[in-house]
């Protein structure tokens, strides 16, 4: 029997063994139900209803808002706007180009919205989840329509009432709803990636310890090369991970699409594929590390201690990715997206928020997979040296020499 068939045989055994565990299947189903329930909560509570509780001005104290104006803002206009969004600092701007520059600026020159009196309100893509720009622009539009009503000639009241808000217009390429959705995806994607990588690293180490602890491994290595054994195990657990992730999230996503499909902007779906892709790449990298380390110990209680180096790398990568969300176009984010241990997180963030070139994504994935392949050789040698030594924990150097 050749290598691929043997590896596949080993992998399918791993899959069957996990699926046989009632605890594993039960926990997955319960989690899936929980997630689906969470996903349907907004629809049930009416959060998506336009007249629902999420609308209406909030009473939070707002800092002085920089408001760009092309043309003149009347006293009434300003009074009504300030009544709606708090104190504003008026920044005169010459034309739409200047408005765009001011809206897209970072730092203190930035304006939250630009008013073209009597015409429209301009705003910019939201730079962060906590930015109030788009929401403020909507309220400013409503306020200006109201101001127009106050100044209006009684003959025009009907016309003004028919238009309860000045149109709010997006300057720049990303629609605010999509920007919000992308930010949410970046946060959720990075956190999700971290959670599943940690979970499957732990599952791998326990799988290795099970074979070592029950000593069945001696029978196995007498029959198949250790490398095949390791590859089959990692492949099998990877398939389990993929199936479990699908089971966990598909029902919840379906519920979201059905209840709020119109709110999910186009183009966001492709990011789901990116998350799945980076899960595969990140799994390949961290799985070989976990397998190599797992072969050093024989008892489950030692698993977490020996896994520490892998955990440090995973947590480090996660933190780097999390930081990159705030500065997705910075040199830091770009560099991090090519360092194998942070690449799955950082490149996912860039793909979500900064639109890197396709070759950058491909290069980053290749670098990470190349590192995984190089580490496979190291891990397989440690695995070979460690897997037959039951009892006390094996030192890394001993396993290396014995491998």
């Amino acid at each position, binding site marked *: 029997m050749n290598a691929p068939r043997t590896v596949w045989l080993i992998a399918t055994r791993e899959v*069957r063994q996990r699926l046989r565990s009632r605890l594993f299947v039960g926990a997955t189903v319960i989690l899936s139900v929980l997630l689906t329930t969470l996903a349907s909560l907004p629809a049930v509570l009416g959060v998506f209803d336009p007249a629902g509780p999420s609308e209406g001005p909030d009473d939070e104290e707002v800092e002085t808002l920089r408001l760009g104006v092309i043309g003149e803002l009347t006293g009434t206009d300003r009074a009504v706007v300030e009544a709606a969004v708090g104190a504003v600092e008026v920044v005169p701007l010459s034309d739409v180009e200047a408005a765009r520059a001011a809206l897209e600026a970072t730092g203190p020159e930035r304006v939250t919205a630009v008013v073209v009196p009597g015409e429209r309100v301009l705003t910019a893509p939201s730079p962060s989840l906590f930015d109030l720009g788009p929401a403020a622009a909507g309220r400013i539009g409503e306020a200006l329509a109201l101001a127009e009503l106050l100044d209006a000639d009684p003959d025009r009241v009907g016309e003004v009432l028919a238009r309860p808000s000045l149109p709010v217009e997006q300057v720049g390429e990303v629609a605010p709803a999509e920007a919000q959705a992308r930010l949410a995806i970046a946060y959720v994607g990075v956190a999700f990636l971290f959670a599943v990588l940690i979970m499957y690293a732990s599952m791998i180490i326990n799988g290795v310890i*099970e074979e070592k602890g029950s000593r069945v491994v001696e029978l196995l290595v*007498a029959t198949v*090369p250790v490398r095949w054994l390791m590859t089959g195990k990692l492949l099998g657990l990877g398939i389990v991970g993929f199936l479990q992730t699908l089971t966990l999230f598909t029902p919840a996503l379906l519920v979201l699409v059905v209840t709020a499909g119109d709110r999910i902007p186009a183009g966001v779906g492709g990011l789901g594929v990116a998350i799945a892709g980076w899960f595969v790449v990140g799994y390949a990298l961290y799985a070989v590390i976990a397998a190599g380390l797992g072969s050093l110990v024989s008892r489950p209680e030692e698993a977490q201690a020996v896994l520490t180096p892998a955990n440090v790398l995973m947590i480090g990568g996660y933190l780097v990715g999390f930081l990159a969300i705030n500065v997705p176009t910075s040199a830091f984010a770009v560099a991090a997206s090519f360092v194998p241990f942070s690449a799955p997180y950082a490149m996912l963030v860039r793909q979500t928020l900064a639109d890197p070139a396709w070759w950058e994504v491909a290069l980053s994935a290749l670098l990470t997979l190349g590192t995984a392949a190089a580490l496979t050789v190291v891990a397989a040698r440690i695995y070979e040296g460690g897997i037959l030594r039951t009892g006390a924990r094996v030192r890394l150097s001993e396993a290396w020499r014995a491998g």
Partner: protein
Amino acid sequence: MLVLDQLERSFGGVVALAGLDLRVAPGELCGFVGPNGAGKTTAMRCAVGVTTPDAGTVTWDGAVIDLERRRRIGYMPEERGLYPRMPVLEQLVYLARLHGLSAAAAAANAAAWIERLGLADRADSAVEELSLGNQQRVQLAAALVHDPALPLLGEPVSGLDPLAVDVMAEVLLERARAGVAVVFSSHQLELVEGLCETVAVVNAGRVVLRGDVRSLQRTGDRRLRVEVAGHAMWWTSLPPGTEVVARRDGEVTVALADGVDPAEVIAVARRAGALLHVRLEQPRLSELFRDAVDQRVGR
């Protein structure tokens, strides 16, 4: 022909194999015995490729044991181990397929072995739910399920009840008669004596005694067992070439080197008192074993 040639292996300064040589011919049922720590397990591990020797080679029919050949070995590790949560039948099918059998052949063989070893009603139980003895039976089945061309069994009888031992003995003889070389290690020397044609005694990493069990018994020091009435310590003045190797319930066992006349010893005993019984025997395997491994005997 399985050939272990000048195997050497040490683990951090502890020598496990110190130039071990062993040849096992097709159709030979070879008992592999030795005290604890003699190197039996390491030698077997080298043969299946689980351990790499520091020096020396392992060949089978003149070729290095590659993957294809390893698949045809039926290995039963002395350190027992199976997947605890995997059902018996499924586990045997899996192991048979890992050894290269097709799915259908693996299923047929696994079912046949389960039947033969009396595990039919436990086929779908997880291994961890079985009694220790039944787990041992499964372990034996795991070593034989792919019809190995070279069974290498570490302590296959330990933990087995007499019925299972009978089945195992029958199976091993059957394999040997079919022209297969069978090696099994055991501490149960009576079993090895009754079952094996040949034996290899290992001590301190070397084979110290090797050959046909019957001819070894012929060439080994004969044993004279004598019991004399009374309490005289007659055995303290024996002729040269003799040695007292056991005393039990008044019976004294004397090993006689080549050329020593038993009558000389009997004469000494008679002077001490009436002879209750006298028996001249070939040595038992356990006695040959002790002679071979006992440093004081100087072999």
